[in-house]
């Protein structure tokens, strides 16, 4: 037998030995058994699987600090109840009474360790009275304390800058701010007014266009939506649903007269469809609430026709 064949034979028998000695250990451990060398018996055990966000938390099991940090697997636990505590610096601790069952795994894999207050940051760099989040464009818009100047920043509070003035005639304070689909305009509205603003582009100190102020005296504006053309506005007042052009002297078209003074509305911007709730009195004289769908997309309604006909959908 050559030297190589001798080495190979040794390797082969070594591999066989490793396989047959390692296999029982791997199999018993995989199945949740632990060999007790004192009693020469296998005991049924359980597993705790821990995953935290953020990672790296210290693990205390029944008050005893373990070597591992999260994410971690605590193997070979005898069945029973355990007090589990996780600690991470500058985060609130997390604790739980875990019941470990034989040959089973307790998966605690969605743990969030919340940071302590030191993580709170001030985002505004001027005194503000209101703010709105624009998730689509990852922006925060702020209104100053007097309700006259609009600012914006990113979600970290960085790039904080003034983007425009509220028109002088606009009565503080606006209910909401909404950015147009083309991202070039935004509207704010209060109970009787809508102001359309043209924010300044980055680095430009002049207004792109002067703001537009639309007045609706005698009506309570509940909500306003941008049409997908970024030119028309859909108004929901306490009496009706209207559509208007974004011009100071435009005549709004009354689409629906509402029976209910407070109507729940939702606008689906992709299809320009308005869903709203209104009450209707039945033949039995009882008032019922119904949900209606009003399509305002270009395929369903031509705005020019709409404006010309001044059609009232419910009439």
């Amino acid at each position: 037998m050559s030297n190589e064949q001798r080495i190979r034979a040794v390797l082969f028998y070594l591999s066989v030995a490793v396989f047959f000695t390692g296999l029982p250990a791997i199999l018993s451990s995989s199945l949740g058994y632990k060999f007790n060398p004192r009693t020469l018996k296998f005991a049924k055990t359980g597993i705790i699987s821990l995953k935290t966000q953020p990672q790296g938390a210290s693990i205390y099991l029944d008050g005893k600090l373990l070597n591992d940090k999260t994410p971690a697997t605590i193997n070979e636990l005898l069945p029973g109840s355990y007090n589990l505590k996780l600690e991470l610096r500058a985060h609130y601790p997390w604790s739980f009474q875990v019941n470990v069952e034989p040959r089973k795994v307790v998966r605690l894999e969605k743990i969030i360790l919340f940071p302590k207050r030191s993580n709170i940051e001030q985002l505004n760099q001027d005194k503000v009275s209101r703010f709105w989040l624009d998730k689509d464009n990852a922006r925060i818009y702020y209104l100053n304390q007097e309700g006259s100047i609009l600012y914006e920043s990113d979600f970290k509070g960085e790039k904080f800058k003034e983007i425009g003035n509220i028109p002088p005639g606009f009565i503080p304070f606006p209910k909401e701010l909404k950015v147009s689909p083309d991202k070039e305009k935004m509207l704010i509205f209060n109970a009787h007014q809508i102001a359309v603003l043209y924010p300044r582009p980055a680095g430009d100190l002049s207004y792109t266009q002067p703001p537009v102020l639309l007045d609706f005296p005698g009506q309570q504006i509940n909500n306003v939506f941008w049409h997908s053309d970024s030119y028309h506005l859909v108004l929901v007042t306490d009496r009706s649903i209207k559509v208007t052009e974004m011009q100071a002297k435009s005549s709004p078209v009354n689409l629906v007269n509402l029976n209910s003074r407070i109507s729940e509305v939702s606008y689906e911007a992709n299809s320009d469809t308005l869903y709203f709730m209104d009450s209707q009195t039945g033949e039995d004289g009882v008032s019922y609430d119904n949900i209606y769908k009003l399509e305002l997309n270009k395929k369903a309604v031509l705005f020019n026709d709409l404006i010309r006909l001044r059609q009232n959908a419910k009439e």
Partner: protein
Amino acid sequence: MQKNKKVKRVLEIIPGFLSWGIIILLILLAIFNPVSCAIIIIVFDFYWIIRTVYLTTLLVMAHHKLYRQKDKNWLVECHRLQARGILNNLYHLIIFPVYKEGLDILRPSLRALQECNYPKEKMIVVMAFEERNPGARENSAVLESEFKDKFFRHLSTFHPDGLEAEARTKGANATWAAKKAKDLLQAEGIKDEEVVVSCFDADTCVDKEYFGCLSYHFLTSPKPHQASYQPIPVYNNNIWQAPSFARLVEISSSFCQMIESMRLEKFVTFSSHSMSFKTLVDIGYWPVDMVSDDSVIYWKAFLFYGGNYRVIPLYNTVSMDVAYSSSFLKTIEMQYRQKRRWAWGVENFPFLISGFLNERQIPLLTKIRRSFHLLESHVTWAVWAIILVFIGPLPIILGGAFFNQMAIGYNLPKITGLLFNFTFAASLVWVVLSRIILPPRPKGISWMKNVVMILEWVMVPFIILIIGSLPALDAQTHLALGRYMEFNPTHKTKRVV
């Protein structure tokens, strides 16, 4: 006779039955008893980890031996044997069975012979063409005009189509050529026992020391006629030009052969190899109706000599072409077909068992051991990748919430992950070794190819998926169903750079 046929059919069914049985059983277990399935998978995973470490170590050892003998002048070693009274009066008969290979394939093979560090007056070359190939006569004439005077004899033979009891196999062609060569040897007064025959694939380019190495081992072997001589097949002819997928598959094939060369008790001839011409004649030449003639010839000799026949590894390379095609998909298909043809070696199992049943000389234990090795290697080939890649995750997918709450459900993916980490570590060794057996970069190939040839190893899981087990399972299924395969050689082309 009828009984023999029935026994043969049963034996043909066994490998496919076992492979499919294992796969179906594991799938059923994954559905109905995922815990049992997971236990089997963990055992298999652990076995595979140990096996990977063991085989990679053997590969390193074989590689080391190949590297050590790389520049050895074997002819000088043969001359030194004269001092021990061993004279080298051997003739080398080299048979190239040709199917459709053109001159672009055949010329380099003959040139490699011409450049060998061995006396050409001791070399007889037989170009074994198929009569049915329309270009055979023309190619033969061209090669004869170029190489006729370069060797002791250059013979062209033309194997007739449709001979009785023959299938269209390489073995039938090689046998025809060997019989013609025997006539020539007789006419020249050369004894069979003085001749070593090498049957090479048409694209085989031998190393310049191959015949010196072969002669040395033949002359120093205690029973030289009771052994086959197996070089290490590498696919270096066009390895720099071949696409990554094909290159990786062929490098892996070379590695498998290197590993096998270390496991002498299981070692069987493969592809291009050499043996005593006397033995070839005594055992009745290559089989004329079987596709896997390269391995069946070993088993024929093994049975003929009552089990006293072995394969001696030669740590010297013969280089062949990487099989690839013009498009990626065609290359995959070509590789798949080639591997299925190799896996058709499973036909050796019924051949061997039938032989054992009629043989009294071989000890029963040897019969059981060799049969088991053969069956186990083919069944493992057909199922391993399917178990690791497809069946491995099944208990977790099909086991539901109950299984995933179990400790074993939690541990199974971890152990599978460990297996893949081991395989990854082993593949790093393969990457290094593959760089060492690579021939120098030809002119016109960018140095960036070096980087590509390292990075391409990330494709290994993809390759395992496609041609790990499926060709072998395909071959076994065909054999089990009695749909026999004809020899369909891989069509190889040379790419001019």
